[in-house]
């Protein structure tokens, strides 16, 4: 019964979303005040309907209702409760429903939080969101329905893929999806602006917090995903240039570019058409990323098997959404002219430089990802493009960004002088050169360059902060006072840059990682990376829906044991799958990573790793996301609280 209610709510949601789209788009043109007022109400109803549908599916999962095909296929009675819930979005149909839920949540956020927007702009934004949602709800309902029943129901479900039974999966997809889908709001603002034919500083100010919020989620989502693959896949890699990863990286790159150039729109009313294009491109890439990966066109380790008929439906939806918005862009954007004038050396130019390089990286990644299927299609030549290509094309392009990141934030708007800025950055430059010289001793040029680049970014961001607060020039009290008086957006930007620098440091340091595979019998030791690694014991241990063999490995430095790790091999009885659960211990600057790969003749085959800098990769990502959140808190102060304050007497302000 409950799944039918969910199914019904989903059908209701389609109708409401359609109404929201029509009312929102047509209302402002007809100048009908009832339509303008109806759009937010419909948005709330639309969200409620999808939420109920989603809860119905969660309910079916929690009570293990195996008459629902989706639950029978991906859950079992021995699956722990947490994974019965997270398993809902661990499969294709359920994840699309989550996607729709987040999209409608974004609409709700605009309806509730965007009260200071002009009513017509808000209605148009909600209308665009409604139409997009309507399309994807139709997709869910027609070819990817998570509520499909099966008869007769199986006695027990097939169970969840053991690799997905991980707390990382509980958070990675929802966070990542919120990032993807959040850009729908920036997209809707861009479309609404194209319909209205007007973009000004106010538009830039409205669209930026939404872009920033989704960027934070996307950054956190990618960071979580990378961390998850690092600790579950058991061989210490964190980025594989897999099409699914590229699909997340592309909107991140264009989204980062969007963040930077929307500042120019807001402050200087320039780069309008470009900003609109980036908003459209970012959401289009999010959409293509989420859905093309599922169509089976791109070759990926993320196996979301989907039938080609779903692929065709998706393609039609994408054609309407992306093609339609780009057509609108081609027709309307040429009239958007910028008004700001600036010199070649200025903050504006620095931001343009940032955009050029970010988009160049995006173009390279895009081309590398799509090249194989298209070359096969056009010329019948089959080839594959892997990590070697991406490493060699992306790293050189990242270099100029890293260099410019230090200088850009210190340039003034309109016209700036490069020399005084460079003089103020002498310390950061000196640190970077020093790091480089010290690390050339490791004979690892990439690591030396990367660490120097990371140090440069972090130091120059700190220099910028010190300059703004006049630290070391004014008394400490004054500097602190100036620090707290700084706009939070400035601190957020500095944090974002520091986070990026920290990630670069981590990635560079990881190239110095040492690893070895050994077979040890209990009591035997081996040396790696200056430590002695001893296998103490191998024993059995119970688990909820698996049995496991655990190895106790002690790591000692100079004869003093300082940590014991317990990597295990798990045997999932329902699926007959063996996974290895790597043990990772971190001290914040390096990871000790031991994977129990196999057991043979009473000995354990262990993969021992010492990963310097690995934690910094994810710390950096979190700092970046945090910087975004910090910057957001500033916006709210300036733009006005998202909820109107009630004046005494109950009247709304």
């Amino acid at each position, binding site marked *: 019964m409950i799944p039918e209610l969910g199914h019904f709510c989903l059908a209701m949601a389609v109708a409401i979303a359609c109404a929201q789209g029509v009312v929102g788009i047509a209302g402002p043109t007809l100048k009908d005040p009832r339509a303008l007022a109806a759009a937010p109400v419909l948005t709330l109803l639309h969200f409620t309907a999808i939420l109920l549908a989603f809860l119905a599916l969660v309910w079916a999962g929690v009570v293990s209702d195996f008459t629902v095909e989706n639950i029978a296929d991906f859950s079992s009675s021995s699956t722990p409760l947490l994974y019965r819930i997270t398993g809902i979005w661990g499969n294709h149909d359920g994840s699309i429903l989550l996607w729709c839920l987040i999209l409608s949540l974004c609409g709700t956020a605009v309806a509730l939080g965007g009260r200071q927007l002009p009513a017509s702009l808000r209605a148009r934004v909600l209308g665009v969101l409604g139409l997009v949602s309507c399309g994807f709800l139709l997709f869910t309902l027609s070819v990817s329905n998570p509520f499909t029943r099966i008869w007769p129901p199986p006695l027990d479900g097939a169970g969840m893929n053991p690799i997905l039974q991980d707390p990382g999966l509980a958070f990675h997809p929802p966070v990542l999806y919120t990032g993807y889908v959040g850009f729908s709001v920036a997209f809707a603002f861009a479309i609404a602006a194209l319909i209205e034919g007007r973009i000004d500083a106010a538009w830039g100010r409205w669209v930026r917090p939404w872009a920033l919020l989704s960027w934070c989620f996307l950054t956190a989502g990618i960071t979580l995903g990378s961390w998850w693959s690092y600790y579950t896949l058991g061989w210490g890699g964190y980025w594989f240039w897999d099409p699914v990863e590229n699909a997340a990286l592309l909107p991140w790159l264009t989204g980062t570019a969007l963040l930077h150039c929307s500042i120019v729109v807001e402050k200087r009313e320039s780069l309008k058409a470009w900003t609109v294009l980036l908003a459209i491109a970012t959401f289009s890439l999010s959409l293509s990323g989420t859905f093309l990966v599922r169509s089976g066109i791109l070759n990926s380790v993320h196996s979301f098997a989907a039938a080609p008929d779903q692929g065709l439906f998706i393609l039609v939806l994408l054609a309407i959404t992306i093609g339609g918005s780009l*057509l609108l862009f081609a027709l309307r954007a040429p009239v958007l002219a910028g008004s700001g004038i600036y010199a070649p050396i200025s903050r504006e130019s620095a931001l343009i430089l940032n955009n050029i390089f970010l988009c160049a990286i995006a173009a390279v990644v895009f081309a590398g990802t799509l090249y194989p*299927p298209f070359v096969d299609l056009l010329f019948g030549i089959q080839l594959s493009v892997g990590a070697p290509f991406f490493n060699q094309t992306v790293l050189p392009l990242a270099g100029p960004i890293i260099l410019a990141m230090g200088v850009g934030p210190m340039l003034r708007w309109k016209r700036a002088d490069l020399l005084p800025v460079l003089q103020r950055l002498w310390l950061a430059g000196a640190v970077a050169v020093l790091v480089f010289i010290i690390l050339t001793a490791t004979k690892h040029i990439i690591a030396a360059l990367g660490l120097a680049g990371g140090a440069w970014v972090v130091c120059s961001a700190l220099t910028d902060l010190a300059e703004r607060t006049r630290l070391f020039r004014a008394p400490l009290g004054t500097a602190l006072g100036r620090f707290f008086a700084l706009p939070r957006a400035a601190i957020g930007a500095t944090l974002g840059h520091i986070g990026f620098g920290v990630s670069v440091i981590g990635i560079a340091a990881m190239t110095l990682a040492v690893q070895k595979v050994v077979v040890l019998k209990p009591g035997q030791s081996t040396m790696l990376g200056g430590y002695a690694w001893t296998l103490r014991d191998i024993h059995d241990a119970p688990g909820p829906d698996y049995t496991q063999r655990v190895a106790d490995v002690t790591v000692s430095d100079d004869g003093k044991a300082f940590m014991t790790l317990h990597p295990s091999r798990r045997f999932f009885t329902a699926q007959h799958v063996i996974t290895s659960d790597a043990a990772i211990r971190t001290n914040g600057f390096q990871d000790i990573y031991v994977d129990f790969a196999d057991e043979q003749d009473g000995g354990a085959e262990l993969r021992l790793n010492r990963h310097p800098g690995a934690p910094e990769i994810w710390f950096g990502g979190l700092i970046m996301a945090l910087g975004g959140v910090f910057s957001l808190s500033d916006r709210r102060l300036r733009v006005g609280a998202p909820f109107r304050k009630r004046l005494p007497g109950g009247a709304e302000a």
Partner: protein
Amino acid sequence: MSPLRRRLLFGVPLAVAVAGGGGFYTILRRMQTDDYDPHALPSPLIGNRPPAFTLPGVGGAPGFASADLLAPPKPMLVNWFASWCAPCQEEAPMLQSLAGQGITIWGIAYEDQPANLAAYLQKYGNPYARIATDQSGLTAINWGVYGVPETYFIDKSGIVRLRYAGALTDEVVKTRLMPLFRQYS
């Protein structure tokens, strides 16, 4: 910029999207008619000779070049590996046993340091009749190497007949490599 050129310029994103969409549509159609499988991870080299390259060896030993692969006396394997790659270490015993059965294996070390490479060969054994080093990784790009280890079967006329990405397993050797050795010997 003239108004017309400006208009055309603003149409470029649409044109790119339309071209992309058209391509995807065709691919999807072909997937439905089953003459196209994007998941096969095929190699552009199959049925061809490897692209031209000349790579140095390690520790004073000569490397080899594409010319050396033109006409091997008997079918052989070219194995891409690296000392930093865990699956390669797993694969090492399998390569040893293949070499023990008289199969010629040439190795190309991918983005590796000579010292690490020497230590690796010392530790895991050296099944390779000849070793070349691709420090820049450019030859790997030309070959379309997806990751290490990767193994290529080359027949007596120097033509690649199989590409296997990942560590060779008993299963792969039995069902895919051995039939090729029988066929092309």
